[in-house]
């Protein structure tokens, strides 16, 4: 079931949580909504589910407008950060809840419900846990039960709100791989909200980066990391050095000298601008062709060395990475730099 979001806006009193967001999710896709807190990602997810209502705009499920449908009618699977399991019910009753809530005409028989619960328990690798209570399970197990409960109603789309947010780092990573496998097997159209960039880049087919109620960039993880579309994405995801430059006739200048850039970099209008470049996209040129600079500091960081290089004719520092056993200039030494995949944005 594909999902279309058209010009969704949401105001809370005088403040706007979302400003006219557009997004399309293809059937069977796994999409991450990534952003800092307050970026509107959870609000968007709740609007899709029908738990919140937009001030303007439409949500379409498989091409039909669902904006006026209630939560109950939308048939979405929703997984909450803090599981939201029914603690007075056994695991099996939790999973069966959605099936038993169906109108009598569409409700499966108790025997069918029992079989379906067993299948789902197997699917989330918790076969035999049906008779336990949620209080007797670990956090990771509870979240898997919450997922099984959401899948039980055969949802049109699966929505997960920070599903691993309450778990410790190790369980988080395990569940991440496991969710990806599960998605590949079941093929549900899935949207999940996270503020963890590693999680989004590792897990999703496409990542939607949000900030202040707007979408900054939508793309496959490689694009988001290697070709950030906005300064926000450069700052929020990974690391980047910021170099103030002057753009003259489409060419950035630093201390009066032109900075050579790859041809595919978008150029802003002439005037002050900021050049963004990630440490791993900086090459130290042994042949001396490139931007000249002096090594300001050097330290070992895990399996590599980090260099801070002061560019000639400016105070700007550029971070670069060198293998720990390779050639690297000493502190105070001269070097030349070349930039791959930088970004240039008007200041």
């Amino acid at each position, binding site marked *: 079931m594909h999902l279309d979001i058209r010009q969704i806006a949401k105001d809370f009193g005088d403040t706007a949580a979302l400003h006219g967001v557009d997004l399309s999710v293809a059937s069977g896709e796994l999409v991450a909504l990534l952003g800092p807190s307050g970026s509107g990602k959870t609000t968007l997810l709740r609007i899709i589910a029908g738990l919140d209502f937009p001030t303007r705009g439409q949500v379409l499920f498989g091409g039909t407008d669902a904006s006026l449908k209630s939560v109950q009618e939308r048939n979405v699977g*929703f997984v909450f950060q803090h599981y939201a399991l029914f603690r007075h019910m056994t695991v099996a009753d939790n999973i069966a809840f959605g099936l038993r809530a169906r109108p009598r005409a569409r409700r499966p028989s108790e025997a069918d419900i029992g079989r379906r619960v067993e299948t789902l328990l197997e699917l989330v690798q918790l076969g035999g846990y049906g008779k336990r209570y949620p209080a007797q399970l670990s956090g990771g197990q509870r979240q898997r039960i919450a997922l099984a409960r959401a899948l039980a109603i055969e949802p049109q789309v699966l929505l997960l709100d920070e599903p691993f947010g309450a778990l410790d780092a190790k369980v988080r990573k395990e569940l991440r791989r496991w969710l990806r496998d599960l998605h590949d097997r079941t093929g549900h159209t899935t949207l999940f909200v996270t503020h963890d960039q590693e999680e989004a880049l590792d897990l999703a087919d496409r990542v939607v980066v949000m900030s202040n109620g707007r979408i900054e960039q939508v793309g496959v993880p490689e694009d988001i990391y290697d070709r950030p579309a906005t300064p926000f994405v450069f700052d929020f995801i990974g690391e980047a050095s910021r170099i103030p430059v002057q753009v003259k006739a489409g060419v950035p200048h630093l201390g009066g000298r032109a900075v050579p850039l790859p041809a595919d970099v978008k150029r802003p209008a002439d005037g002050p601008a900021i050049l963004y470049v990630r440490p791993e996209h900086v090459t130290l040129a042994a042949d001396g062709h490139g931007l000249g600079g002096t090594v300001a500091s050097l330290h070992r960081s895990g399996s590599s060395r980090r260099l801070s290089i002061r560019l000639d004719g400016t105070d700007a520092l550029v971070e670069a990475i060198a293998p720990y056993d390779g050639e690297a200039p000493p502190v105070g030494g001269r070097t030349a730099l070349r930039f791959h995949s930088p970004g240039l944005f008007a200041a």
Partner: protein
Amino acid sequence: MSARFVQPSVIPGFRLALGFTVFYLAVIVLIPLAALIWRASDLGLPAITSLALEPRTLAALQLSFVTSFLAALFNVPFGLLVAWVLVRYRFPGRRLLDATIDLPFALPTAVAGIALTALYAPNGWIGQLFAAAGIKIAFTPVGVWLALVFVSLPFIVRTVQPVLDDLDREVEEASATLGAGRLRTVAKVILPALLPAILTGFALAFARSVGEYGSVIFIAGNIPYVSEIAPLLIVIKLEEYDYAGATAVATIMLAVSFAMLLMINLVQSWSRRRFGRV
């Protein structure tokens, strides 16, 4: 090594705190109750039994426990509704209404009794409406029940209210996304979560009702075998210098109350153990 009596703890003052707690409970609760049982034991079991089996005593005990039970039971749905309204809706005058709930706590019970009698007596504002329909409220067991409903309402409201306030809204939302309508969510998700609080409130309301005296005696009419409550019977026996009889009735009330509260407590601890906090 056998297990230590006290688990080591970083919180200081265990000895002092426990010592004070035991001392305080002893002075305020245990010694008076022990004195009661000691006085009663002077009589011997056969004497207590024969006193308890006196028809007038039996009638009073039955009236007290049955009306108290019914009053607490009646307050469960209505106290729940009041708590629901106070927690879930925002409306002008909410705080005022909230404060009103505590009035039965604060009002001298005799005042409440006189006010209720004035209202519900056959010539009172409300009483005359019922009298026209041939229903008598004041000076009957119904009047006793009414007074007990009045004094025990705050107990249900005040025990359910904070739990309802803390109830995770996400659980309700989860229920909605799974296709459950509002009624189903209330019946299958919210009420079971409130059950331990409801039981506590019920127990407190019941306990208060059994011991209530001031508000009841005015509206009850105190007709032996009809509308005479057990606490009043104790006072009557005391006024007749029948200390043994008073003690016997008191001991029986104590035993029944204790048994019922213990039972409710067991149900609660069972439900806590089972469902824990998720």
